[in-house]
């Protein structure tokens, strides 16, 4: 028998490798809501509106309810209390009350012993409608003479929110410009297509309390809204987020499935499960807002941006969702990553009779970034400047403030630009690849969570609790929602790093409102920054208590005590704690600490810093930190067919610090993929009457492996002073610059500017045709 050589525990931070919950994901063992079954469980389905905008005259249920196996139903009048995550825009009900606002809106929910019977019952329901003129375009939504979709909205119109902000002196900036360019852009709507459908399973416990399993990104907000609609105290609802088959922003809202499963479970006294069908996921939507934009920019002869003027109209669909936030995000991030002095924007978020838009990855910031980065390249061409160098010269400095009052700390944008320019050979190769092949560059920046919470309060945005007990087990309790992005591994990695353990030694229990402390949710790229900091705040005092106990035992200076010292594998008590001359096992260290100072349980709460702004109304946009991205796309344009192929993307992202390289790369690659989809093919389209055109994975064109580019990732580390170990976000920001990089590459390849994604063969051919006839490029 040989004794293995002791090896110190490698620091997990920055390493490349498996997530702590990887095994359950590769084995099919992870349980999603649709995999959960309870005794006496029934299944519910929805009757959905066939009208875009209509009053409900009467609902005929008799035939449906007479079908054997149907056990219950509910209609909108039973759940009249309006909800929504944004307190100032609570305009939704789970089932239509009195009136329908889009084709596909849920009207009735029917529960039966099996899904097929529930489906047949839904088909037997007849709803009488009285049509109202449907509002289906931006023009119609802006016309005050048209009917109002939400009568109770404060303003007699279909404008949910208009935001206007003005910084510096825009007119003076244009007056001093050597070149002024303006253009109209149309950015399409698109949707997330998470492969797991939205699903909910609700059970009433013997004591009358409700347990709801939901496929959600935001357990906390869904918890609050379900309690609100059902008239229950928050404390009587337990929301559990099991494994979730991704969200990308599409599972940020409470859905009809959550509320109707909960209501029917109470009404019927038995568990109710609802799994949306694929077509219903397209109707649940909350995807990218189709956005019409006008952008005007001024430039000095040297390429400095002297002024930016921007207007946007976002077609938001029938309900607000996060639309108030969208109206701000359309404008507030425009300055970054550049140093602008003169900037103004006016944005509108409109109601129309279509499925509601919401927060898709890169929420609200994707559309304006496309417009600005394309116009910037056009200006570089006009001025005879290198587009990469021109961007670099305009970049914001570290530890500065933008014209609209955003405090900027760590900045890695120059390093990002340098990395992709060098790797792609951009400077030497651009313009020289011959007709049909081209390179394009774009840059972007994004937030690491919002400084201000969605509902006003002064409490921590993330709380993490850690329990270490005499077994040696470390348990992290967090209200976060890992939906595949790797937040469980992030928490385990940070805690393991502080305690000298392997991440796999840390058990993470998350997303259960009765078990885990509050975290606001997986949106706005906030989790690594906020929950990560909370985890460090929770573990650090525990670490100090273990240090004190071990130092006392060993009779040494606490400063000499280190964690993760090599232990013998065959002893089974893990790495050791101590000094170069003497140490104790991890488990003994835990015993000593608990004996000396009591239970090893501690919670840490992260509250963003109070950062004043020069601008009183700047409440949406400020973040504790910003991430930065640069990317270069190489495309091939077939001038015969109009087909665009994105062959390769070089992307450099300033994520502050890499916590797990495989996870960070995967997030960046996923962003690029979604960007390529929006650039080439993805669009949520409607027939003129408001019927969704392509509610299936086959018809809604999305990239397979064949259309997806080779992606080369550079993780740039700017070491944010306030991020957990210096980390910032990586899962959302990188998508912002993908579409404009591709648009700029198409110009390099074919000499045409495209102002409306997706860059389909029809649009490319039309542009090539216009160029051939001598029109503007």
């Amino acid at each position, binding site marked *: 028998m040989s004794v293995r050589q002791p090896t110190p525990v490698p620091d997990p931070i920055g390493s490349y490798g498996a997530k702590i919950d990887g095994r359950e994901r590769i084995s099919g063992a992870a349980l999603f809501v649709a995999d959960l079954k309870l005794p006496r469980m029934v299944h519910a389905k929805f009757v959905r509106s066939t009208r875009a905008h209509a009053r409900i005259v009467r609902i005929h249920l008799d035939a449906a309810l007479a079908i054997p196996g149907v056990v219950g139903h509910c209609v909108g009048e039973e759940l009249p209390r309006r909800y929504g995550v944004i307190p100032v825009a609570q305009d939704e009900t789970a089932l239509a009350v009195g009136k329908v606002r889009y084709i596909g809106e849920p009207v009735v929910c029917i529960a039966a012993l099996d899904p097929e019977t529930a489906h047949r019952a839904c088909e037997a329901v007849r709803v009488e409608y009285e049509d109202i003129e449907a509002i289906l375009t931006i023009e119609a939504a802006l016309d005050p003479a048209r009917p109002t979709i939400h009568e109770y909205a404060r303003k007699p119109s279909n404008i949910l929110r208009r935001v206007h902000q003005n910084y510096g002196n825009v007119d003076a900036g244009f007056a001093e410009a050597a070149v002024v360019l303006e253009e109209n852009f149309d950015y399409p709507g698109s949707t997330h297509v998470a*492969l797991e459908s939205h699903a909910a399973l609700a059970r009433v416990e013997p004591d009358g309390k409700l347990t709801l399993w939901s496929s959600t990104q935001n357990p906390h907000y869904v918890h609050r809204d379900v309690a609100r609609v059902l008239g229950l105290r928050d404390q009587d609802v337990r929301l559990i987020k099991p494994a979730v088959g991704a969200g990308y922003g599409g599972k940020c809202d409470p859905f009809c499935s959550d509320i109707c499963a909960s209501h029917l479970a109470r009404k019927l006294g038995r568990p109710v499960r609802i799994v949306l069908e694929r077509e219903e996921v397209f109707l649940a939507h909350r995807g990218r807002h189709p956005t019409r934009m006008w952008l005007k920019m001024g430039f000095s002869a040297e390429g400095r941006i002297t002024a930016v003027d921007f207007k946007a109209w976002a077609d938001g669909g029938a309900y607000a969702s996060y639309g108030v936030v969208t109206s701000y995000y359309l404008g507030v991030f425009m300055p970054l990553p550049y140093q602008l002095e003169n900037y103004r924007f006016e944005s509108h978020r409109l109601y129309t009779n279509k499925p509601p838009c919401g927060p898709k990855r890169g929420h609200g910031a994707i559309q304006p970034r496309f417009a600005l980065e394309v116009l910037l390249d056009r200006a570089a061409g006009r001025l005879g400047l290198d587009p990469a160098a021109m961007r670099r010269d305009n970049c914001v400095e570290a530890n500065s403030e933008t014209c609209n009052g955003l405090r900027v700390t760590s900045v890695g944008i120059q390093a990002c630009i340098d990395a992709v320019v060098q790797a792609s050979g951009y400077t030497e190769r651009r313009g020289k690849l011959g007709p049909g092949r081209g390179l394009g560059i774009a840059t972007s920046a994004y937030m690491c969570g919002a400084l201000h919470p969605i509902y006003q309060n002064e409490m921590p945005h993330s709380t993490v609790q850690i329990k270490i007990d005499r077994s040696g087990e470390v348990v992290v309790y967090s209200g976060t929602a890992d939906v*595949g992005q790797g937040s469980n591994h992030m928490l385990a990695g940070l805690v393991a790093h502080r305690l000298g353990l392997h991440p796999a030694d840390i058990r993470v229990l998350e997303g259960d409102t009765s078990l885990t402390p509050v975290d606001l949710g997986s949106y706005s790229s906030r989790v690594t920054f906020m929950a990560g900091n909370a985890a460090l705040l929770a573990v650090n005092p525990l670490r100090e208590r273990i240090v004190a106990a071990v130092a006392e035992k060993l009779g040494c200076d606490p400063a000499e005590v280190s964690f993760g010292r090599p232990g013998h594998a065959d002893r089974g008590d893990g790495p050791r704690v101590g000094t170069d001359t003497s140490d104790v096992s991890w488990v003994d260290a835990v015993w000593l600490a608990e004996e000396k100072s009591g239970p090893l349980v501690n919670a840490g709460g992260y509250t963003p810093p109070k950062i004043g702004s020069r601008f009183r109304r700047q409440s949406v946009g400020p973040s504790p930190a910003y991430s930065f991205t640069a990317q270069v796309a190489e495309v091939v344009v077939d001038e015969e067919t109009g087909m665009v192929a994105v062959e390769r993307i070089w992307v450099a992202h300033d994520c502050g610090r890499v916590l797990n390289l495989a996870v960070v790369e995967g997030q960046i690659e996923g962003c690029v993929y979604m960007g390529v989809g929006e650039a080439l093919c993805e669009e949520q389209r409607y027939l003129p009457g408001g019927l969704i055109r392509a509610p299936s994975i086959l018809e809604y064109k999305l990239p397979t*492996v064949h259309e997806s580019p080779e992606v080369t990732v550079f993780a740039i580390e700017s070491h944010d002073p306030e991020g957990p170990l210096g980390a910032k976000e990586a899962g959302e920001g990188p998508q912002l610059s993908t579409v404009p990089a591709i648009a700029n590459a198409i110009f390099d390849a074919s000499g045409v500017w495209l102002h409306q994604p997706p860059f389909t063969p029809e649009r490319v051919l039309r542009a090539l045709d216009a160029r051939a006839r001598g029109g503007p490029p």
Partner: protein
Amino acid sequence: MSNELVLHLVVNGEPARALVPASRTLLELLREDLGLTGTKHGCDVGDCGACTVLVNGLPRLACITVAADCAGEHVDTIEGVAVGGQPSAIQAAFDHHVAAQCGYCTPGFVMTLTHLFTEEPEADEASLRHALGSNICRCTGYVKILAAARDAQARMRNPA
């Protein structure tokens, strides 16, 4: 229900039997009747590949396969891939490269690759991409999936 039948088949090497309506799909049979929820429901119409299983060694989309057609056949699912409780080379490579982010599509990808590398251990890049073209992933951009597949193929050729 008069249109019910008793099905006998072999699932992951073990005999299985179920009383099912004639319209039962293989996906429903696996998930609802046999409790094998590792095979996922993505689209119900054969567009996404999440429900890929092997029937007599060949990839089939369980959501558009009638269960009754599989009477007497051998069906392999994600639950049967691990060897002696240890992940297969493909699974281990997916784990190492974090090719499973949310993991919802992963069982389908693993089954597609299990078939490919059994039939074609020397599959080249074109064959690999051709095979993976039948599965949709929305998380990874396929970058880590391709890396895991190449890595697994190398490990299967030269076991450590």
